């Protein structure tokens, strides 16, 4: 492509200026978007929509008996969505699915726009605060009442409640989980045996010792992705944070509680500890160029001892390297300390303007209460279903990673150590705050203190408005 500016620049510049002036004139007329006077009460702001209507008519919301097609927008790369929706259609043949899949990053960026323009019935959402503030998600409280979700352990739904100011933990329910995940450290049993690690480390010191041993034996101690737009070092960092800081304080920050800060002495210690690991060479030298997929393929290929990751990979690992993988929770500072873990529901919301909210809510209830659905959830998804504490659990062969991650869930529940993920604090805190700073920390261009300050500053600009 090329061009030649034509022969009479003088005249044409005048034309161009005119055009530009026209633009400014136009701009002066009215701003884009809905005018501020009539904007703020679309559907969803108002909890008394269809759910209330249908439950008022007696009986719980359902999919009815007529043919119905649910629109859904899910995340690529995880078989659980297909497994659950297929099973649902088997039990309720009148329900068909129209499912669109996208990468998580793309889905995150598209969610607000899709919800505003073309609202699906069910949508995988990363972070409820902004979507709820913009009235794009349906308030699920009426359904919670109708289906009895309000009688489940309150901690399960807490992270999906959003108050008017956008802070999470209290307020109306804006999403439901398909299950809830558990994160920790996966280890390669063969490599562990090689360096004499017979049981998982019980304290952070013991973990440090194992890491040093692996390094000395020429084994990559930790394979962890930290490349592109997703800094996976957030996993070990947050695990270390929970050793030095009570999980509830970390949650306050993630849930945008007033005055919360990530820049605390405890978290500085955690970041310094991570920096020690980096300096000791416990990570692959190309971590800053590694994506999630590469990390998985390297771990599966037996190229590293540890990987910080979540139980959504349990089923996959049981299939790809059966019997060869173990899992343990991040060891606390002292052996009798509290075990904490990032543990968040696989959040699914219902569009504020969805066409079939009742059926969508019925599906979400079914996922967590139906026997087959819970079996699929555990066997395919690898994670613990939501629901009452005494609900049905499918049998899982012992010795599998799935069994270990599920058991770890009980420990975390007992220790009250569940945390949301620090990357979910705001819509772009991951990409604009954590990722660049963790990449700089890895490259030795950022200090632990500087990183936390920078992330806190980014957090404040985002939560500020």
């Amino acid at each position: 492509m090329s061009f030649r500016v034509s022969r009479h620049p003088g005249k044409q510049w005048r034309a161009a200026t005119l055009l530009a002036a026209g633009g400014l004139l136009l701009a002066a007329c009215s701003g884009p978007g809905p005018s501020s006077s009539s904007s703020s009460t679309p559907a969803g702001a108002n909890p008394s929509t269809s759910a209330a209507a249908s439950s008022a008519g007696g009986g719980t919301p359902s999919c009815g008996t007529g043919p119905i097609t649910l629109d859904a927008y899910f995340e690529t790369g995880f078989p659980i969505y297909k497994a659950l929706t297929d099973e649902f259609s088997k039990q309720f043949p009148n329900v068909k699915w129209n499912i669109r899949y996208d990468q998580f990053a793309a889905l995150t960026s598209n969610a607000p726009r899709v919800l505003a323009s073309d609202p699906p019935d069910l949508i995988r959402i990363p972070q409820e605060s902004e979507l709820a503030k913009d009235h794009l998600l349906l308030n699920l409280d009426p359904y919670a009442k109708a289906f009895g979700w309000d009688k489940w352990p309150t901690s399960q739904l807490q992270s999906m409640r959003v108050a008017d100011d956008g802070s999470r933990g209290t307020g109306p329910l804006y999403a439901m989980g398909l299950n809830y995940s558990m994160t920790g450290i996966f280890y390669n049993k063969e490599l562990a045996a090689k360096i004499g690690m017979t049981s998982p480390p019980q304290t952070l010191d013991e973990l440090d010792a194992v890491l040093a041993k692996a390094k000395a034996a020429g084994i990559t101690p930790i394979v962890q992705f930290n490349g592109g737009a997703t800094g996976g070092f957030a996993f070990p960092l947050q695990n270390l944070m929970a050793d030095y800081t009570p999980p509830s304080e970390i949650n306050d920050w993630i849930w945008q509680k007033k005055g919360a800060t990530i820049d605390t002495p405890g978290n500085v210690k955690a970041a310094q500890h991570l920096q020690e690991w980096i300096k000791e060479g416990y990570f692959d030298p190309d971590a800053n160029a590694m994506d999630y997929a590469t990390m998985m393929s390297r771990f599966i290929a037996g190229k590293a001892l540890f990987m910080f990751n979540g139980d959504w990979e349990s089923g996959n690992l049981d299939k790809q390297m059966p019997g060869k993988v173990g899992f343990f929770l991040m060891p606390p500072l002292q052996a009798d300390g509290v075990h904490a873990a990032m543990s968040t529901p696989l959040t699914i919301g219902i569009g504020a303007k969805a066409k079939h909210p009742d059926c969508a809510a019925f599906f979400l209830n079914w996922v967590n209460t139906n026997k087959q659905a819970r079996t699929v959830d555990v066997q395919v998804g690898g994670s613990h279903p939501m629901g009452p504490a005494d609900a049905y659990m499918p049998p899982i062969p012992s010795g599998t990673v799935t069994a270990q991650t599920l058991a770890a869930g009980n420990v975390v529940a007992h220790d009250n150590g569940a945390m949301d993920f620090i990357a979910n604090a705001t819509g772009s805190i991951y990409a604009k705050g954590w990722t660049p700073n963790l990449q700089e920390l890895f490259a030795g261009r950022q200090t632990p203190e500087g990183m936390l300050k920078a992330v806190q500053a980014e957090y404040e600009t985002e939560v500020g408005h």
Partner: protein
Amino acid sequence: MAQHLVGWLFAAPAIAFYVAFVIIPLLHTLQYSLYRWDGIGPSTYVGLQNYAHLFSNSTLLKSILNALKLIVFFSVIPVALGLLIASTIRRIAASRLAGFARVIIFIPQVIPLVAAGIIWSWLLASNGLVNQVLAAFGLKHVTRAWLGDFTFALPSVGVIGAWVLLGLCTLLLLAGMTKIDPEIYEAARLDGAGPVREFFAVTLPALRQEIGVCVTVTVIAALASFDIIYISTQGGPGNATMVPGYAIYYLAFFQREVGQASALAVGLMILVLLFILPIQWLTRERKR
């Protein structure tokens, strides 16, 4: 009179499309750049604040600097190397080998940029071909994950661009050279000019126009780069490869800062014109 009217009628459909899907959106970009808007809710008029932000925000400023650095790789290297190669192969331009080569070296220009990005992400990975070759030459100590390295990520992206554009520039310049009257070269040789002097005295001046085209195309490719960055680095590590094109996309669609994205878009357009207009003026053919 009728003829003028008919002329405008012929141009009307093209003008209609252009106005509807280029000019009007362009005016909207100008308009949005004066507002603070999340793309969904109501907007607030903020005057030139978004533009001021361009200069105060280090990430955005850095993205523009990065784009300028990319010009070295996307533009200077392909044009310089292209000149060198074209003048070396000028004499064998009619051979069968050259005919075959013409087909081959144009391929990077034909494939999608995203494909080039995927291919090179793989070549530049820690166990990719680039490191394999370096190690084979005993340079194992310089091997690294090129796209994840703060110092080398931007040059690596630049190399991808250079690979894509080198063939185009070489062929364009070669085509220009074959149009030069061989007698001028003969005359220069008779005057005792070596290849170097011949190049500066004969080839370069005659290629003004072709060089102008090459520089124009490649500078736009550098300043407006998006596809390669999206696939290979997404602006990382840190913000080492952040460019305006990707920053606009990210601001508008992830951070939902439509006003800032639009201001940056306007800035990018002005930047492109600031480069292209002088190039066009300098390399314009003298009036026929």
